[in-house]
């Protein structure tokens, strides 16, 4: 046999090996409560959840999924006011809170074959204590710092638990949003990150290649698959390989999806606030007139109308107007390049003012940056764009190594954010005052918790340039029902979503 023939035979054998390795995976999906004939719903997401242990999860996808796998003591109403979920509460003193578990709590679900004789049992105050005690004991949890003010947790009875604080914290209930875990599994250091066991409406069935979930009430199966590329995610929806997608698509793709008769596109307002961060130690940017000039040099409304999703809206402050602590509409800085130019000249700036704008490598962020660059040029501002990988970009921001940067506040619930982001004593690493803003007047207002006055002061002093709250959307096959995008992008409707064969 000659060498060429041997090579060809080798290649043939290789191909056979490859294809034999590509056997279709058989689903181990078994209905939990009821035999379910419902079609599986496949949800394509841009980033898979990183950690299903609520004590460690900090990425958006994990937090969204954990809301469905576990139950928490507290949730929020439409005005982002903390409201009872698993428990009602009472402030006994400035340093102690009593939480009483209600009947909404569901039993923990232990999957068959978990290797234990656990019987389904309702969540108790002991589980609450075990969960929060374990968080405070961790050294590597992103949530530990939030509970550093916790002195101790005392179980009063099966349904009642007392939280004692070191210092008064009027926003403490708003922090109790982490999923509650079964105490006996916390004790044995169960791997919740990969085998979550909670009392939420969904359970994780399998996590090989994709996350297969099942709804406990009716056996509805839901799969989450990660598809990073936005174009591919869109094509998979068009090709009906997936049933729905949500967020992270350029607006023109959304228009394309809206033109498809087999698809439904739903949009809603968003609450995540985008802004331009400014370095207040920069000799030019520390001048108020320069900051005002920047605010007048960007045509936000045109950007929203042309390159953003429907339902995107102008932003005035970190918390949206409907937030209970906000409840006011701030006057937007109008697009006025001549005024911006005049303000710069009044500030004694030689035109063009050269500034460096740092952003991530995200395509949509870069696109927005180039639009702002073009708009600012008219006002006499020469913006240089530098895009960096996320970790480098964020490290530079925290070190104060920037003039301007673009970021978005995601998932902010309490007005405490104003103190963390702008108080003089909140410079990194202690807080989020990345712009190194120092304002005695604002510090005084923050100490009185007069949030209306605080936001007015920030809006007037412009330690950042407010941009917008980006809208949310979900696109799905016509057969998908009972799902709508939410303002904060959560996936809560997976608890009620349904599909009929199409």
């Amino acid at each position: 046999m000659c060498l060429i023939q041997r090579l060809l035979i080798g290649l043939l054998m290789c191909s056979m090996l490859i294809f034999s390795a590509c056997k279709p995976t058989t689903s181990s999906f078994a209905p939990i409560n009821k035999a379910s004939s419902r079609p599986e719903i496949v949800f394509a997401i841009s980033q898979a959840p990183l950690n299903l242990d609520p004590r460690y999860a900090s990425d958006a996808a994990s937090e969204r999924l954990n809301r469905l796998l576990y139950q928490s003591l507290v949730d929020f109403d439409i005005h982002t006011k903390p409201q009872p979920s698993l428990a009602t509460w009472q402030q006994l003193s400035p340093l102690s809170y009593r939480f009483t578990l209600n009947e909404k709590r569901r039993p923990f679900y232990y999957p068959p074959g978990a290797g234990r004789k656990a019987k389904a049992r309702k969540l108790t105050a002991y589980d609450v204590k075990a969960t929060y005690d374990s968080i405070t004991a961790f050294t590597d949890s992103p949530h530990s710092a939030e509970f550093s003010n916790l002195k101790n947790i005392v179980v009063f009875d099966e349904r009642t638990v007392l939280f004692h604080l070191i210092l008064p914290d009027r926003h403490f209930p708003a922090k109790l949003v982490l999923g509650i875990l079964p105490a006996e599994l916390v004790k044995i250091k169960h791997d919740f990150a990969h085998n979550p066991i909670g009392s939420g409406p969904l359970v994780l069935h399998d996590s090989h290649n994709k996350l297969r979930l099942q709804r406990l009430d009716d056996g509805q199966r839901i799969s989450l698959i990660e598809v990073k590329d936005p174009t591919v995610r869109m094509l998979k929806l068009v090709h009906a390989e997936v049933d729905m997608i949500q967020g992270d698509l350029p607006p023109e793709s959304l228009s394309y999806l809206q033109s498809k008769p087999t698809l439904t596109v739903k949009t809603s307002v968003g609450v995540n606030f985008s802004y331009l961060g400014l370095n207040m130690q920069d000799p030019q940017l520390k001048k108020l007139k320069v900051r005002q000039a920047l605010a007048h040099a960007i045509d936000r409304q045109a950007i929203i109308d042309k390159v953003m999703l429907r339902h995107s809206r102008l932003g005035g402050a970190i918390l949206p107007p409907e937030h209970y602590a906000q409840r006011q509409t701030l006057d937007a800085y109008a697009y006025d390049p001549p005024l911006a130019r005049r303000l710069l000249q009044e500030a004694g700036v030689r035109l063009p003012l050269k500034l460096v704008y740092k952003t991530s490598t995200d395509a949509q962020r870069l696109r927005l940056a180039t639009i702002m660059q073009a708009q600012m040029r008219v006002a006499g501002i020469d913006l240089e764009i530098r895009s960096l990988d996320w970790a480098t970009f964020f490290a530079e921001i925290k070190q104060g190594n920037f003039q301007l940067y673009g970021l978005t506040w995601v998932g902010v619930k309490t007005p405490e954010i104003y103190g963390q982001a702008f108080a003089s004593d909140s410079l990194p690493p202690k807080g989020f005052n990345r712009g190194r803003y120092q304002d005695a007047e604002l510090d005084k207002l923050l100490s009185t918790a007069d949030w209306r006055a605080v936001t007015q002061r920030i809006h007037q002093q412009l330690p950042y340039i407010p941009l917008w709250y980006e809208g949310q959307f979900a696109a799905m096959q016509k057969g998908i029902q009972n799902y709508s995008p939410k303002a904060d992008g959560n996936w809560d409707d997976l608890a009620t979503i349904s599909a009929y064969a199409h």
Partner: protein
Amino acid sequence: MIKRVLSFCTVVFGVLSLTFLLIHLVPGDPVEVMLGESASTADREVLRAELGLNQSVASQFGLYLSRLAHADFGVSIHSKTPIIDLIKNRYPATLKLALLALLIGVGVGVPLGIYAALKAGHWQDLLVTIVSVRLSAMPAFWLGPMLMLIFAVWLAILPVSGMDSPSSIILPALTLGFGLSAILTRMTRTSLLEVLNEDFIRTARAKGLTERQVILRHALRAALLPIITIVGLQMGSLLAGTVITETIFSWDGIGRLLVESIEKRDYPVTQACVLLVALSYVVVNVLTDLLYRLADPRIRLGH
């Protein structure tokens, strides 16, 4: 053989130390990523000590090497998953994709190259050259979505992406294989054309061998060395994980794992992935050397 083992160890050690140094030089701190901005300085320091990040880079490297000697790759800083499990899940996927892409590349590129060489100067040669140049100029981030559009959306005969069905591998393999086949077509054509002018080919023809025998037994065998070199190099890159193709097609391979770990500053995962990639390159090089020996018995290892 000893020389080869020594060079193997030097390469791996060089890659390990360089990666270790570089990853500690780039901005971004895993402790910051893990704990977020609200963590206290004390908490950061405790975690830094737990992860061994408060030690000098040299001590950290020493510790890393000693763990590695016990085949302990550690756990991912973020997902807490043992790295060996991550690699076990991801590497076979990359291996499958690389082998199929190689199969397509060789299966299409070599015969086309032979055909072009035999038709040198004719329109067929020109056509093959134009097609191969065009193919080699198509980047994966363009070719991939185009293939998706044609085969998955318009013709609806293949899945857009993912790893759910056996046919899911076809489009990513074609994306990689087409590029490789273009290079191999050009290389085979050039190499074969050179050989076809050699005296021993004239002798073979004079002996009365058929043209098929002359090409397959004599000419192609002699032209194989540069082709093997290219195949070896390309296989090395394919095994390093073709990040763009894996990302476009949602193929959970080692390339995606590596890039994700760099983005999250997951040092242990990055180091394990780079080590694996380096080992893959070394193994492919050894295999390439063995193939040289097979193709040309005059070549002996170490000479």
